């Protein structure tokens, strides 16, 4: 998974007790470069903390382009596949969408029948982390730095103004900036790389 985006980089230092609250930004998705056709399980294995056991036992609900997935060998291909991960969910719907669920027969078939573009080389995957998956694995990703779209990030910060007060420093191009400048810069780019530690 390579960093090939020509976009602004920000580094945020945050009060330790508030770090976990920043993981919710991952519900909107982060962008990761990978190899076209890579099996989903291998793609996840390359992420920090996503061991085979964690993927097998904890990641109980997986959507690829809005379709529930049971098979971790499913390849990631096409233009910007969107992968969403969740823990086990309640309700009949939660059971229906659970990986290899007894109730998966009650799903609607939403697999696209048109052929997927079998591109070669790299592709960009949007990875959404929901609920406890974001809390348990999000911090490591945020510390490493993630690519996020600025539109949902701006919504995230606008709905959680108090989080901005938990930021001790913001670095941009080796300079310290204030939160107002940070938000202004966010609105000027489509996507950014953000590290939060």
């Amino acid at each position, binding site marked *: 998974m390579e960093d090939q985006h020509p976009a602004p980089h920000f580094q945020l230092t945050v009060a330790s007790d508030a770090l976990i*609250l920043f993981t*919710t930004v991952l*519900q*909107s998705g982060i962008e990761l470069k990978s190899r076209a056709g890579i099996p989903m399980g291998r793609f996840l294995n390359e992420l920090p903390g996503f061991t085979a056991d964690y993927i097998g036992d*904890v990641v*109980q*609900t997986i*959507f690829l382009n*809005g*379709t*529930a997935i049971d098979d971790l060998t499913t390849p990631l291909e096409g233009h910007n596949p969107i992968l*969403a991960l*969740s*823990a*086990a*969910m*309640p*309700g*009949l*719907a*939660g*059971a*229906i*969408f659970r990986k290899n669920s*007894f*109730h998966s*027969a*009650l*799903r*609607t*078939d*939403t697999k696209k029948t048109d052929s997927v573009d079998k591109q070669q080389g790299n592709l960009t995957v949007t990875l*959404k982390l*929901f*609920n*406890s998956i*974001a809390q348990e694995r999000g911090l490591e990703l945020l510390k490493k730095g993630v690519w996020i779209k600025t539109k*949902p990030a701006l*919504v*995230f910060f606008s*709905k*959680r103004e*108090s989080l901005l007060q938990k930021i001790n420093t913001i670095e941009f191009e080796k300079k310290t900036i204030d939160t107002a400048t940070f938000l202004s810069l966010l609105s000027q780019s489509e996507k950014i790389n953000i590290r939060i530690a």
Partner: protein
Amino acid sequence: MADKIFRVNMADLTTSIEDIPADWAGHGGRGLTSTIVSAEVEPTCHPLGQNNKLVFAPGLLSGTAAANSGRLSIGAKSPLTGTIKESNSGGTAAQLFAKAGCKALIVEGLPKADNWYSLALTPDGVTITEEKELIGQGNFAVVQALENRIEGKHGLLSIGQAGEMRLASANISIKDPDGSLRSCGRGGLGAVMGAKKIKFITVDPKDGKVAIAKPDAFKDANRIFAKALVDHPVSQALGQYGTNVLTNIINESGGFPTQNFTKGQFEGHESISGETMHDTIKERGGKVKHGCHQGCVIQCSQIYNDADGKKLTAGFEYESIWAMGADCCVDNLDHIAEADRIMDDIGIDTIETSVAMGVAMEAGVLPFGDGAGICKLLTEDITKGTGIGRIIGNGAGSVGRAFGITRVPVVKNQAIPAYDPRAIKGIGITYATSTQGADHTMGYTIATNILNVGGKVDPLTKEGQVELSRNLQIATAAIDSTGMCLFIAFAALDDEKCLPALVDLLNARFDLSLTGDDVVSLGQHILKTERAFNTAAGFTSADDRLPEFFYNEPLPPHNVVFDFSGEEIDTFWDF
């Protein structure tokens, strides 16, 4: 204390205590309310008339120390659907009914005078008292007034203005341990209570206790049962994010009904998701975890504060947030919470009313996304009973008929909840065939595999899918009789010790020798009893259908339609 049937006749304002008929002895909760309604209510009666009866029944395990056993069932003929109806809720009442030795409270008849009353239930019987002070008041005022009026701990069931106006979406509210409200929300049972001119019911068990036939066996079974619940990952997710943890998932699936069921994804979903709600609650000093009844070990409820840190609402559920959120395109969680609080106060079903708002928005009554407008409409129109308030308060079907809207998401006139059946077709079968109108809780996930009702037909065929849905409904009907919260379903599904422990709890409570097969038989009996009532009330297989638009309006983003034919759906009842 031997359980009894408590009966109130509002026509002559008399009460009695009766022995339990042998046919009713093995029932509790939904099984008992449906059995009594079927036995005593003329199916063709007017739901708000003198011949309908309102039945309250704690579950078979309510009042005991069994984990998550605090659900109270309320049944009647529904003014919303015209079918038999059972709606259950947490709160403190189920435990207190059981401790008072009340197996069921049956309220019948209509008062002759134009007076309002309250009922006070104790082990000695029911007292009827004329009520004047609290008429016209919301549920929160009733809770507060009775805290001042009555000494000691008591259970409380009440109706708000919606019930007094006999609106078809009116619910019956039940006080929870913190003085917040839980709702027997669906089907308009609050209107039946309003028709009988009962503003509230208090329950005081005095020093009553529920007898356990085999206490040691009960304790052992409960230990296993509770551990299975606590350890299950779904229980943990529910405790952290509440049921609203589903928003992101269902939106991702494309089955999150949006803008009056015209889309399957809501752009503003992240602003109302369980994750966002969790952070907001923590930031504002609310409670992320909260139990709606004593003995709940899952604690999926929460206290949601406003921006100033004051309690705004409690028990903020996924279905309510979806309905007021995505279906009405409101992405402001505070507006949704405020609407939730108002609906709790006036005593009206959050699902039915919000879906009705979505239909009203399509009709141009107010714009999609207008959260403040919704709150104003609730306060100034529904609470005060204006013309438009009554149209919306009578449900989504009422709005559709009043404004000539054809996209009205109802089955048997009850609003379809938060899972679009085009994108999640298994739920569509439940919506269509439920004896009580569209209801996601009718076919929950209760260990159909362990109960050996998991289906013998290939589940990938439509026949197999209908069979699976049927078996879910059978198992759910049985669990609804125990007083157990449906969220035990997930542990029961995955932990092989959980469901046997539940059966052991029943056996220890009553000194029985039930097996899993008996649980299945009970569920089948309940469904058949309810179906027979509906048939006698005039319902046919033609009523077991989804609205036309689900078949011919593809749902974005997957562009799917519901594709079960009437003949395929009708095989549901082949058992």
